[in-house]
């Protein structure tokens, strides 16, 4: 087993004046499950492909364990890859598919057999070993692809959107299976996805990327509760964080945030920080998670300085929770996540209280989270 280290790694394609990956620095610990996440074109797959050896590193150093592997061929990096397309070898049965890589590396027959059967048992595909890929379902094929990677007992697993070809139900199931499997195998895993739910549920640590730059590398909890900038705050969480642009002002010893339909008091600790950094009187962006808007009377009574009024434009009841799309707050719709048993109707005017201790405040120009800087 081994960790992976990227030191000032760049990827520049010939003819392009902009780097696809810029100054990527990261230390991935041995046995860590690291997720690279970001929108399409952010450089996450390119980074993974550089680690795999499928893309040349334009600048910087890549270590697997203590070895610099910039110039080592993919097959000699002791890695195993599982890609979105997970093509199986169609003319071989499942056993042969899983054994192929080991056979090529001249492993003994009994060792190949031991590894294949053990992996098949782990993935619960023992009964499929004689079948050809054509006779397998999407989920079964995916498990065979995983099996092919597992039998190699590599130092590092690399997975590029391995679940994106599966339907939603199977994806959820496989997500849990992969997490469980990686914990059991205790092998470093680097996993690429554009799906933030996948990232949040699977990763020990998540790297959020945008335009080739690392935006933030942190645990799921840290990313959700302490995003460093507007992008991370908006990318992590579904429904996404609400952003409201407004003005900060000092009135009667309290710092207030004012925007269309909003006039609330910023808690003392946060207010002092804003004063110290000279933000009073400036236009800011306040971020509020949908679950930090409360319609319960108890909460409203207890928070007289953060009550707002809005009308419900659309409500989506998912049973256990309800999403309210609210009008009249800032420029865009604001979404609140409330109890599914709330008897709220579309068109109704309601009062909500913001949990001001959990708000985020972003500099409008730099888009940095002022409270985290």
């Amino acid at each position, binding site marked *: 087993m081994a960790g992976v280290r990227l030191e000032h790694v760049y990827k520049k394609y010939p003819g392009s004046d902009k780097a696809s990956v810029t100054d990527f620095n990261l230390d991935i610990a041995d046995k860590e499950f690291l997720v690279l996440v970001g929108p*399409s*074109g952010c450089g996450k797959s390119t980074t993974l492909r550089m680690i795999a050896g499928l893309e040349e590193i334009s600048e910087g150093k890549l270590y697997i364990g203590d070895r610099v592997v910039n110039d080592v061929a*993919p*097959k000699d990096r002791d890695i195993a890859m599982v890609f979105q397309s997970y*093509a199986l*070898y*169609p003319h071989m049965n499942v056993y042969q598919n899983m054994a192929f*890589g080991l056979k090529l590396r001249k492993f003994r027959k009994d060792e190949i057999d031991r590894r294949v059967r053990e992996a098949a048992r782990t993935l619960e595909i023992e009964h499929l070993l004689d*079948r050809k890929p054509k006779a397998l379902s999407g989920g079964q094929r995916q498990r065979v692809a995983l099996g092919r990677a597992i039998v190699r007992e590599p130092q590092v697993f690399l997975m590029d959107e391995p679940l994106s070809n599966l339907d939603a139900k199977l994806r959820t199931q496989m997500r849990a299976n992969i997490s469980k499997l990686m914990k059991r195998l205790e092998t470093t895993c680097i996993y690429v996805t554009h799906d933030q739910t996948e990232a949040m549920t699977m990763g020990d640590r998540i790297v959020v990327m945008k335009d080739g730059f690392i935006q933030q590398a942190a645990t799921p909890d840290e990313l959700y509760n302490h995003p460093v900038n507007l992008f991370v705050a908006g990318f992590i969480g579904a429904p996404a964080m609400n952003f409201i642009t407004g003005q900060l002002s000092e009135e009667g010893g309290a710092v207030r945030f004012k925007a269309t339909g909003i006039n609330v008091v910023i808690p003392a600790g946060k207010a002092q920080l804003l004063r110290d950094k000279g933000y009073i009187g400036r236009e800011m962006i306040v971020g509020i998670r949908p679950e930090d808007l409360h319609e319960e009377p108890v909460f409203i009574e207890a928070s007289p300085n953060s009550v707002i009024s809005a009308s419900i434009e659309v409500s989506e009841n998912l049973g256990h929770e309800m999403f309210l799309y609210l009008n009249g707050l800032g420029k865009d719709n604001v979404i609140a996540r409330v109890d599914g048993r709330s008897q709220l109707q579309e068109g109704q005017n309601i009062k909500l209280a913001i949990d001001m201790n959990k708000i985020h405040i972003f500099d409008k120009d730099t888009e940095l989270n002022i409270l985290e800087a």
Partner: protein
Amino acid sequence: MQQLMNGSVEIDTMSKTEWVKAGGAKLPESGDQLELDQGYTLVTKVDNHHVQVLRTQAELTLLEKELLSWLAKQGSMSKSGSVSASEMERQARKLGEWLQQSIDAGEWRSEIPERFELHHRLFDGMIPFLLMSEQAENREPSYVELEKVLRSYLSDDMLLIPLREREWLILGTDRLLAEVETNEGDMIERGETKEALVSLATGLHQMITEEWGGDCHVAVGEPIIPTESLVYAVATLRETINLGRKFHVGMHVHMPWLVHLERLLSGIPEPVRSRFMDEMSGRQDLFTDPETVSTLDAFFAMDCNVSETAKRLFIHRNTLLYRLDKLKQEAGLDVRSFNDAILVRLLMLLYKVTKRK
């Protein structure tokens, strides 16, 4: 063999000492034969200390025994004896050079002349694959290494022919198509051939990527009789990869039957192409949005079927309709109408080529 001989047949291994004790030659060779108590015994393979033998209790005529002995000799020669790896490479390179010259001269319909040593292996139905490696120069491995890997993946009777730098023609037996089938003996339907070829090529790409030399492009054609149409097949596959790289960046497996439109567009003179793009001025800006591009790609891949496209994109049908309506509003093109769909498809393909200028 058991059916042919009307008796049981088994493969066994004997030490050379045992073979000599039983009356065999001190330096056994494939094709040597003995009548022993256990039955007729024929040497099929020899290594440093052992001989592999075929044994049968069946009653064989002298002619049958001679025929079996001859077959064993031929088998051993074709495996290792007569054609060494370097000789094989030499023959393959010679053929590769001729293929390249024929393509350069525009003689796409040329048949392979009999003077080539490999000529006798090119009469059976074979699947042509073209492999273009994208690895850096210092990583190009030897012919022998690549051939070994491909033999493991395809079969021992595959042929590897180097064409240009980092470009190889791979010929695999068309029996592979039957092996893709779920059950042995199932006949592959004509309509399923292309599907099977795609899966073989995709598997080959995956195998090369993981087990050999990293990133590469693979094109596959329908089975051919190489002596008759190999030049044409190679030229078509090369053109397919070039079109695929140009129009479908990010795809690594290419099929000639999926790039008809691309081939046509590629042949349009630049001024005509530019005029079309100018007339559509402003509309191509839509393709800078990845969501629009992926939505349209999926929509066309699913034959403009809204429900199937929504399923493929894992989005609600109404979300897809909203996106298509947005496109209609912004570009004035409704992809649910046949004529507009054609325009958008052409615009997308041409945009992929022109945006890189």
